[in-house]
């Protein structure tokens, strides 16, 4: 090929590659504009104050009310429950894999956790219906076990692989000199772990928890299948709840195009988007701090 042709070819492809970079910005921008546009269309009809502080979500009633507080609290309860279960288990497992497990055991545990991460959310939701639900029903004497606790257990299972992997990286990255200094002054392995290694890895562990929270807030199928979906104001772990994600999933399929109800679903999606964005940004901040610590 002529040198001129080859150079033109080179230049053309440089442009193509760069264009795909813009595509990524366009996708995020598109999502943002879609949410903003539809939310504005909603807030023209319903005041933002009623939307945020309203305690009743009943878009199809005679006097439709669009209070998103019950949905927000539902998401909060389920996520909180999931973290109460997943954070201690996740950090404990990460510490075990990084500090205690022998290489042979490590080679079994790490693929096992990757396997857990690969299980589709709909399959975990299904097990919430057939195993966790009846189990909770038997213990509490309720007619079915589809409640916030069920959703929290399932979300914990979904968030665990993320938390374990990131926390394990963080604990593993603590310099060996820290541990050796601790052993040198006579501390035991456990004391070193609790007082030296885990505090030193704290930014990475917080990042791990934040990523887990982000996953739990945004997860749709498991909560949709396992929490019972009653739109009343949530009263606790043993009551049925309805999160932001499951409300979108349930109502979007039936709502007529470009009605107030349709726009309302985009408005709660905007809240969800902002929540996950905030959680991920906090996580990212701690990841960066952790990197700085590593570099030092």
């Amino acid at each position, binding site marked *: 090929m002529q040198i001129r042709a080859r150079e033109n070819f080179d230049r053309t492809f440089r442009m193509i590659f760069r264009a795909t970079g813009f595509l990524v910005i366009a996708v995020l921008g598109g999502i943002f504009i879609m949410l903003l546009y539809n939310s504005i269309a909603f807030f023209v009809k319903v005041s933002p104050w009623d939307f945020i502080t309203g305690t009743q979500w009943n878009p199809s009633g005679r006097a439709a009310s669009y209070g998103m507080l019950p949905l927000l609290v539902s998401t909060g309860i389920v996520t909180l429950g999931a973290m109460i279960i997943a954070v201690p288990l996740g950090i404990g497992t990460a510490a075990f894999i990084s500090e205690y497990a022998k290489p042979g055991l490590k080679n079994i545990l790490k693929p096992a956790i990757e396997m857990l991460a690969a299980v589709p959310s709909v399959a975990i939701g*299904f097990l919430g219906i057939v195993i966790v639900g009846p189990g909770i029903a038997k213990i509490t004497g309720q007619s079915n076990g589809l409640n916030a606790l069920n959703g929290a257990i399932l979300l914990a299972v979904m968030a665990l692989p993320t938390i374990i992997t990131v926390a394990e990286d963080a604990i593993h990255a603590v310099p060996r000199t820290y541990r050796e200094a601790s052993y040198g002054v006579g501390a035991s392995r456990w004391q070193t772990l609790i007082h030296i290694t885990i505090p030193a890895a704290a930014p990475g562990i917080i990042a791990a928890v934040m990523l887990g929270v982000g996953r739990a807030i945004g997860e749709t199928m498991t909560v949709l299948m396992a929490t019972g979906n009653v739109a009343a104001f949530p009263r606790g772990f043993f009551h049925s709840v309805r999160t932001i994600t499951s409300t979108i999933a349930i109502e979007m399929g039936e709502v007529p195009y470009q009605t107030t109800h349709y726009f309302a679903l985009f408005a709660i999606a905007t809240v969800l988007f902002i929540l996950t964005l905030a959680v991920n940004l906090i996580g990212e901040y701690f990841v960066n701090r952790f990197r700085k610590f590593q570099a030092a």
Partner: protein
Amino acid sequence: MKKLNPIFEWFILLFCTGTVCFFLGVILYDLVSKGWPVLSWAFVSKGPTAGMTQGGILPAIFGTVMLTLITAVFSVPFGICCAVYLNEYAKDTWLTRLIRASIRNLSGVPSIIYGLFGLALFVQSMGMGTSVLSAGLTLGLLSLPYIITTTEEALRRIPASTREAALGVGATQFESIRDVVLPSALPGILTGVVLTLSRAAGETAPILFTGAAFFIAGGSGYLNQEFMALPYHLYMLSTQHQAIEQVRPIAYGTALVLLIVVFFLNLTAFYIRYKHRNNE
């Protein structure tokens, strides 16, 4: 803190790890023990009959395969090109940083929001309707950030000397990328692509409103029609069917087939990674 009994200390961590393994064990044991008796050649080669209470899940398998292919056709070329741009061409400017920030944020966006975006963009604005094409493109957008991140990681592992050698013998930058960099990064790229597709194949939320249907008589194979998919089928069978207890065995069979598909893709990815490591 008072010194704990060392055996107790060991037990706490073992308990955490054991519980996590227990979760995985329950998932695998329950799905395999109750799904396995349902699996048969007829189950994977026939369509559902008698209002879903009998027959197989062939259209759902077919739909998932088709959906995953569309996802791959859309997200793989764009994802690889973007990763090449970021790793091979881009300098550290505000634009590059904006692209990277977008990628990080996109990978944190909940899948149901991708579903809404697919509905607003492909189904309504672009007039594709609820179809396998809309759903595939939606999943393609969802997969894009993962493919970019994994591809970029694979490209970063190629040493600079490899590129310099290609440039040194007179190749243009594009030729060095096409003939030298991409082929040597291929195993790493493939691993990422297969893992991402296994995730996409199991996703349900983004296809809820973009084209998945409960029942289609016979897989049509047209891009502009609704389709059945394994995860959506499992969701409908376990929550929306009138005779839930009666279709439970079929739901278990569907869950197991879905799990097998996803694990098979994962194992393929691990195999590629493992084989590549041995070659190095």
